[in-house]
């Protein structure tokens, strides 16, 4: 894991000192709210419905136990005992007081964390595959590149006041677990026919009110060109991106209006101009960063304890079957800790839960944790023989729900329970769906099915790329939920198709139930997933199940 050097530590301390003084000047009236707002946003501080909200970056989702302990400390000392993990590998605190925020940032600074550029029209927290460094299908660990991008983009003078925000994701797996095609810019680490590692660049993906799937702008960049090329892309967009209309400011619209050929030509020209100024410092920095991400000393040994528990304990077996993923090292597994207990708020962890996860990481998991965009926590490296003990510890904290990738593993934004932008609630819809399907005992039979819920068109809940997407709107002063079907957040990314008219708050869960029953009726067998069935049969049978009244009228 990356450890701050003296420069990083001094930079962050100075930045936190500046922000402390800015808060003081706001409180004594030297700064107006209009002057203060861009400053607080650039340091991750929002004002939401009921309180301020501090959004802390967990760069590329990686953290160690000391950092997790500090997240718990913030929750306990300055908030109401919990934090909310978000779809961009951040954590949000919903109840801080303005005067306390500088202290919170100083506490974070002590463990090499910050809230810089988690808001504002800047390059945001760089996200990555949450299985980075552990996945069996990985070409190269994406975290050194992500860290390089974090350092380059932090306080980058050219990119502090752009037309709109800019989101970057990096992934090195064959499978895309980082929703690459929904990012302003994505770096996909690939191998060419000669077996060399390089970087494929996608741009112009994004969700929000105009969902777009990212397009490849460069197939294969050598590492030495990567940072200059990314800088060229952001620079071109920063110059020609629209500033007349904030809804048309993101690079996806720039790409749509100019076309990929035009953008590529502009980026190439800009790249040619700036590439010579990258004289190798970035490469030296990369090598330095990379050394921080060396493998831990993986344990050897038998997996007999795992096998015994797997064969004798059905609860452990169910958890192992859903929550473990293949690790690249023999005898190891990647364990996902579900932060989606049935009926609980997706992504919310209490201070006690965070401390226990930190403790487990320290004891068993080489001191590493990850946060996924799916709002779960991951132990990336675990020897299989430690899993029964880990499972028992998780169970005691309400963290052993066996539902990863299943219908109750729902992405949900905070919605109108917290967010000032929301048009409807998301959390209670997610809670009720999870509880309902748990009661029906259908979850494991249904299999892989991703529900994603957003409480407004900004789509923080990724509803467009949910197999079942739910969008909460305000229709004439009443909460109303639109359903999209067939979205896909992976490398075969697709934007879901709108099913038809929306549903009232008390109708949305029964509507989801009708979709799921339709799927169970028409699938060709338990092996055919919801998405595969949808791709085979299309929208029509689901529409018939959703709107039985309309069907009667037609008949």
């Amino acid at each position: 894991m990356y450890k701050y050097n003296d420069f990083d530590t001094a930079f962050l301390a100075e930045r936190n000192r500046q922000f402390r003084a800015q808060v003081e000047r706001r409180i004594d009236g030297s700064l107006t709210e209009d002057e203060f707002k861009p400053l607080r946003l650039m340091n991750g501080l929002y004002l939401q419905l009921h309180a301020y909200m501090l959004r802390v970056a967990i760069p590329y989702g990686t953290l160690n136990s000391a950092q997790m302990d500090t997240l718990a400390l913030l929750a306990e000392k300055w908030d109401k005992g919990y934090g909310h993990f978000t779809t961009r590998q951040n954590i949000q605190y919903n109840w801080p007081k303005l005067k306390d925020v500088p202290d919170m940032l100083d506490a974070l600074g002590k463990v090499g964390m910050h809230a810089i550029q988690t808001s504002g029209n800047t390059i945001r927290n760089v996200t990555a595959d949450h299985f980075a460094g552990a996945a069996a299908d990985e070409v190269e660990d994406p975290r050194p590149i992500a860290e390089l991008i974090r350092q380059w983009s932090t306080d980058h003078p050219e990119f502090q006041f752009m037309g709109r925000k800019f989101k970057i994701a990096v992934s090195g797996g064959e499978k895309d677990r980082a929703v690459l095609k929904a990012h302003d810019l994505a770096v996909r680490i690939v191998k060419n026919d000669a077996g060399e590692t390089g970087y494929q660049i996608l741009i112009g993906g994004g969700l929000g009110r105009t969902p777009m799937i990212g397009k490849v702008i460069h197939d294969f960049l050598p590492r030495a060109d990567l940072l200059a090329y990314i800088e060229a892309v952001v620079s071109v967009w920063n110059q020609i991106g629209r500033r007349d209309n904030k809804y048309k400011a993101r690079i996806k619209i720039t790409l749509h209006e100019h076309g990929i050929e035009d953008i590529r030509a502009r980026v190439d020209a800009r790249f040619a101009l700036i590439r010579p100024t990258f004289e190798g410092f970035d490469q030296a920095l990369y090598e330095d960063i990379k050394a921080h991400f060396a493998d831990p000393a993986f344990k050897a040994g038998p997996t007999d304890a795992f096998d015994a528990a797997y064969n004798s304990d059905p609860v452990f077996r169910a958890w192992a079957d859903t929550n473990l993923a293949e690790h690249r090292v023999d005898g190891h597994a990647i364990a996902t800790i579900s932060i989606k207990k049935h009926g609980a708020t997706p992504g919310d962890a209490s201070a006690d839960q965070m401390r226990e996860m930190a403790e487990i990481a320290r004891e068993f998991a080489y001191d590493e944790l990850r946060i996924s965009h799916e709002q779960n926590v991951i132990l990336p490296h675990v020897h299989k023989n430690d899993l029964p003990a880990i499972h028992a510890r998780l169970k005691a904290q309400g963290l052993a729900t066996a539902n990863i990738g299943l219908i109750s593993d729902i992405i949900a934004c905070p919605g109108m329970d917290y967010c000032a932008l929301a048009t409807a609630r998301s959390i209670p819809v997610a809670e009720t769906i999870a509880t309902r399907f748990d009661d029906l005992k259908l979850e494991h039979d249904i299999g892989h099915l991703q529900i994603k819920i957003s409480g407004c068109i900004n789509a923080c809940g990724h509803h467009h790329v949910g197999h079942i997407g739910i969008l909460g709107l305000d229709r004439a002063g009443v909460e109303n939920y639109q359903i999209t079907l067939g979205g896909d957040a992976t490398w075969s990314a697709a934007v879901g198709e709108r099913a038809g008219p929306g549903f009232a708050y008390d109708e949305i869960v029964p509507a989801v139930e009708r979709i799921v029953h339709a799927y169970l009726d028409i699938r060709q067998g338990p092996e055919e997933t919801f998405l595969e069935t949808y791709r085979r049969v299309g929208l029509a049978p689901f529409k018939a199940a959703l709107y039985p009244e309309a069907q009667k009228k037609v008949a």
Partner: protein
Amino acid sequence: MARAFTPKVVTANDLLEGDVIYLAANDSWTRDHAEAELIEDEAHAQLRLLEAQQQALTIVGAYLADAKAGPNGPEPTHFREDFRRKGPSNYVHGKQEALANV
């Protein structure tokens, strides 16, 4: 034709605490929606909003929110304002927590 004016309250967030506050008729800020001044005249509403916005050392983001008269004082008419008045629906936090602890 311009839309008919509907009654309003002036609401904002407290600068230091960040919580939801309402402007009362006596120019103080209250945490209780029912104690807010229900404004039935459009010109008066604009004036009260301006007066609120000048209090930059106390409040953030003042605006006019729809409300109606109720038996115990003004009540919100839109669900967003109702959530602001009460707090989130997933935990007993926010205003509802403060009320429970009285």
